[in-house]
C-alpha cells in the first residue's frame, strides 16, 4: 500500500512555505513523481509534506554535499528522498518512535545494555579478515593489486547482519512498553532475526511472509516457528516481499498502540531509515577501528550489496564524510538489466513513493511496481533505501549491478578460495570485485561487507552450478 498524495507540477501554492530547493540543477533532472503521464519535465520540485510544527530548514545556500547536510533532516528527508508518506494514524507512532530513539541514543543504560547484547548474544565485534587467496587471485602479473578485506558479518548470530537492527529495535520496543512485534520478510533472514530477538526478550512475534516466499524458504519458516513466532502467509498481489510489507504496515495501522513494527531495512517512513542505519552503524565504526589497527589508515574502497540497503548503509555511514573513501553499492541484475527481470533499482528505477518513503523504485509507465527478480531473495526488493537514492544523486556513492550468473560464480570462487560460503546476496558484491580490482591502484585497501553466510543458499547454488 503506497500512500498517494496529489502533487502538482506547477507553481507552489501561496499558503505553504517554499520547499527545500538546493541550487544544483543536476540534482533535479528527473521529475520526482510519476503519477500523471506528463511529457513535460519541469525543474521545480513539487512534493509537499504535511504541515508540521517544526520550522523549515532554510538551506538556499547549502550545497547538497553529505557533510554539510544533516542526514536526515528534521522532516526525515535525505535531499528530496525519504519522508513520511503514511496515513494519519501512523504519524503519532512514528513521532513517538523518533523521540524514543533520540532519547535512547543518549541514555547510557540503554547503550550499555545494547552493547552487552551485541557482544555476548550476537557475537560482535565481527573480525575484519584479510582474504589472502582472494587478494592473490586479483594480483596483477607485475605483483601489484588491491588488498581485499572481508567484514565478517556472516559470523553474527543467525548468520547475517540483520540481527544488529533486530536487537536494537526490540530493546527500543521494550522501552516503549510494546508487547507485540510484527515484521515482514522475504528470504526469511529478517524474519528469523526478529523471531530470535523476540524469543530472547519474551515478546509476541508475528511475521508476514509472501506465500510464494514461504514455499521457497520452507526451512526458514520452520526456524521462525521453532523460535516461537507466528508466520502469517500473505496471498495478495504477487505474494512476495512487497506484499508482505504492505500487509505488515496494514497490521501496524490497526494495532499501533500495542505493536512495534520492526522494519528490516533502511526503507520505509522516517524514522526507520535513520534508526536502522544507526543500529547497523556499528559495522562501519568497527571497520574504522580495525583498519586503523591493521594498517594504520582508512579503507580506500567500501563495497557492499544493496537490496533495501541496510548492510551497505551500516558500512558506509561512518565513512560518508571521508571524501577519500569510495563507496560502492552492488545491486542484483537478475537475468540482466536489458531483460527486464532484475532488481537494479538505482540503475533502472525512477523516483516514486513506496512503503512510506520517496526513493528510486522499479515502476512501469503507470507507476505500478514492477516485480523484481534476483536469484538472491534478500536483494529481491523493487525499492531501495532513500539515503542510497540521495547518495547516488549527489554522486557520493557509486552503484553497479551484477547478474545471477556472475553472483553464482563468485559464490563458488570465494567458497573454494577462502573456505567461507557467502550468502548469495553478498556474492553480488564479491562478483563486482572482478570488474573493480583491475582499476584500483596497488595496495588499495578494499573492505567488502560479507553480509551473511550462504548455508541457506547451498541448495540453490548446487542446482545452478551442477556440482
Amino acid at each position, binding site marked *: 500500500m503506497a500512500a498517494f498524495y496529489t502533487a502538482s507540477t506547477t507553481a507552489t501554492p501561496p499558503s505553504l512555505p517554499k520547499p527545500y530547493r538546493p541550487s544544483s540543477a543536476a540534482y533535479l533532472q528527473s521529475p520526482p513523481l510519476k503519477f500523471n503521464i506528463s511529457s513535460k519535465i519541469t525543474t521545480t520540485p513539487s512534493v509537499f509534506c504535511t504541515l508540521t510544527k517544526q520550522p523549515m530548514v532554510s538551506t538556499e545556500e547549502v550545497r547538497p554535499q553529505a557533510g554539510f547536510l544533516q542526514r536526515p533532516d528534521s522532516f526525515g528527508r535525505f535531499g528530496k528522498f525519504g519522508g513520511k508518506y503514511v496515513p494519519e494514524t501512523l504519524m503519532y507512532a512514528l513521532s513517538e518512535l523518533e523521540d524514543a530513539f533520540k532519547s535512547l541514543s543518549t541514555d547510557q543504560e540503554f547503550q550499555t545494555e545494547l552493547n552487552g547484547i551485541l557482544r555476548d548474544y550476537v557475537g560482535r565485534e565481527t573480525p575484519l579478515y584479510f582474504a589472502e587467496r582472494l587478494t592473490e587471485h586479483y594480483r596483477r602479473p607485475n605483483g601489484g593489486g588491491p588488498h581485499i578485506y572481508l567484514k565478517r558479518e556472516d*559470523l553474527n548470530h543467525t548468520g547475517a547482519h540483520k540481527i544488529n537492527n533486530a536487537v536494537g529495535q526490540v530493546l527500543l520496543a521494550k522501552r516503549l512498553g510494546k508487547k507485540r512485534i510484527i515484521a515482514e520478510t522475504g528470504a526469511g533472514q529478517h524474519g528469523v532475526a526478529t523471531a530470535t530477538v523476540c524469543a530472547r526478550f519474551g515478546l509476541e512475534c508475528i511475521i508476514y511472509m509472501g506465500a510464494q516466499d514461504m514455499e521457497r524458504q520452507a526451512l526458514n519458516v520452520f526456524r521462525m516457528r521453532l523460535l*516461537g513466532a507466528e508466520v502469517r502467509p500473505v496471498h495478495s498481489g504477487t505474494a512476495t516481499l512487497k506484499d508482505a510489507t504492505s500487509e505488515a504496515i496494514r497490521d501496524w495501522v490497526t494495532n499501533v498502540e500495542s505493536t512495534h513494527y520492526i522494519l528490516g531495512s533502511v526503507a520505509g517512513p522516517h524514522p526507520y531509515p535513520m534508526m536502522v542505519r544507526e543500529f547497523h552503524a556499528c559495522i562501519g565504526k568497527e571497520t574504522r577501528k580495525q583498519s586503523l589497527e591493521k594498517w594504520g589508515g582508512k579503507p580506500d574502497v567500501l563495497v557492499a550489496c544493496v537490496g533495501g540497503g541496510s548492510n551497505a548503509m551500516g558500512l558506509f555511514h561512518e565513512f560518508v564524510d571521508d571524501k577519500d573513501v569510495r563507496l560502492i553499492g552492488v545491486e542484483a541484475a537478475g537475468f540482466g538489466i536489458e531483460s527486464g527481470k532484475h532488481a537494479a533499482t538505482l540503475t533502472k528505477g525512477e523516483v516514486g513513493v513506496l512503503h512510506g518513503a520517496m526513493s528510486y523504485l522499479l515502476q512501469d509507465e503507470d507507476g505500478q511496481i514492477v516485480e523484481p527478480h534476483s536469484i538472491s531473495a534478500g536483494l529481491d526488493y523493487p525499492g531501495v533505501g532513500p539515503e542510497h537514492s540521495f547518495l547516488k544523486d549527489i554522486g557520493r556513492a557509486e552503484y553497479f549491478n551484477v547478474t545471477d550468473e556472475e553472483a553464482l560464480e563468485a559464490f563458488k570462487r570465494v567458497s573454494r578460495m577462502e573456505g567461507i560460503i557467502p550468502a548469495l546476496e553478498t556474492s553480488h558484491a564479491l562478483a563486482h570485485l572482478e570488474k573493480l580490482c583491475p582499476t584500483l591502484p596497488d595496495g588499495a585497501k578494499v573492505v567488502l561487507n560479507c553480509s551473511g553466510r550462504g548455508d541457506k543458499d547451498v541448495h540453490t547454488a548446487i542446482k545452478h552450478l551442477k*556440482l
Partner: protein
Amino acid sequence: MASNPSNVFLQGGKFTEFGKPITLRKLFFSNPSVLPYNYRNFGAHISCSAIVEKLSPAAGQGELDSKSLTTRYLMTQKLPGQTEKPFSSTGKFGRFGGKFVPETLITCLSILEAELTLALHDTDFQEELATELRDYVGRESPLYYAKRLTDYYKNSEGKGPEIYLKREDLVHTGAHKINNAIAQAMLAKRIGRKSIVAATGAGQHGVATAAACAKLSLECTIFMGSIDIERQSSNVLHMKNLGAQVKAVDGSFKDAMSEAIRNWVGSLETRYFLSGTAVGPHPCPTMVREFQSIIGKETRKQAKEKWGGKPDVLLACVGSGSNALGMFHEFIGDEDVRLIGIEASHSASLSRGDVGVYHGTMSYLLQDEEGQIIGPHSIGVGLEYPGVSPELSFLKESGRAEFYTITDDEALDAYERLCRLEGIIPALEACHALAYLDKLCRTLDDGTKVVVNCSGRGDKDAAAVIMRKQDRLES
C-alpha cells in the same frame, strides 16, 4: 641428498641445515641412524648445546641433557602460558591412550608428535594461529548469560543457579570443530603436506576441514558413512561447495574413520590425516585437545571478567570428547570446578562401555561379549561414536569428572526450549548437555555458576527435528 645431522641446528623453533629450514621428516628419512626408533641417541648426532640453549626457557629446569634430548623433552613440557603438565611420549593417560597401530604408522606418529611440539613452541606459528582464530574463525566466542533459561530453572523461591553458555555456535562453520581443523591444517602445511584426508560423522568436522583446506589451498578428501550422508545432506553440500571430495563409505562414522586411516596409511608421505575427534593413537587425542583447549582458556578469562571468579560447574556433551576436553582441560587442576560430561543414552561409552582398544587407542568403548563393536545411535549424529577419548576415560576412572546420559526425546525437548527461551538454535549434540540442566539445576545452590558448552548451532538439525516432531505427533 642425505642431510648430515651434524650440520643441523635449531633456529627459531625450526631445525635448520646451512641456515635453511629442514623438517624433521627430511632429517629422519635422509639419515637412517636418526630414525625415531633410536631417537634416544638423537642427541649424539646433533649439536645439542645449541638446541638445549634455545629450548631451555620453555623446557623446564634441569630435565634436559644432550643424550636423551627428544624423549625427555617430549615427556615434560611447559606449554606457553600454562603450568607444567606432564604427558608421556607414549601418550598414556593412566592406563588409557597409547599407540595401538601397525608398525608403518609408528614413525609417522612420532614425526607428527615432534612437529606438534615444535609448532606449539614456535611463536611465529602461535601468532599466525591466533590471528586466524581471531579473524577467520571469529574468536573469542562470547560467554553469554542465558537469563531466560536461568529464570526457567529458578525454584518457587526464585533461587537457582546462573546459567552461562559458551557460544561455540557462533564460530565460523558453526561448531567448535574449526578450532582444531584450522590449527591442524596449518600444521600440515608447515610440514609440507599437500593433501588432507579426514573422516566425519555429523559432517561438521568435514565442513570445518574443507573450509580450512580451501583457505590454505590444500587438497581435501572427506570420508563419510553412507547412512550419515543421507541424514546430513546439507553438510555434504557444504563440503562440496568448499571444494572437498566426499567419498561414501558403507556404514557410519566408525567405518568412515577406519577407511580414512586406511587411505592415509597408503600414502603417508603425501597425505595428512586430520583427526577431528580426541581419539586415535597418540598424539591425536593430545593434539586435538590442545587445539580445542582455547575454549577453556577463554572461559577462564571471561569468567574472571564477568563475575571475578571461576565457573562452579562445567557441562558439555560427549561424543568422542573434543568439545568437552576443550572446555574441561583448562580446569582439570581446579578441584573446586565440577566437570560433567553428557552422553547420548544409546552411545554412552563411558557410562555403559568396557575398556578395550579401538582406532589405535585404549579407552572405554561399546562392545559386546565377544569384543565386537556395538553400533551406537543418537539423534545427535555427532555423538554417535562407540568409543571415547582416553583422557576422558582417565578422568572418569580417577573420579575427576562425572558422566551421565540423556535420551533422544530429552534432547529434542531441550532443543525447543532453548529456541523459545533464548532464540538460540543449538546443535542436537549440545542439546544433550542442555537437557541435563533439568536434572542438575535443582541440586545446585543459589547463584552457582554453570557454564554449558554450546558446541554448535542447530540449523543443520532443523529437518531432523521436523521429522521427529511429526513422528511424535502421529504416534
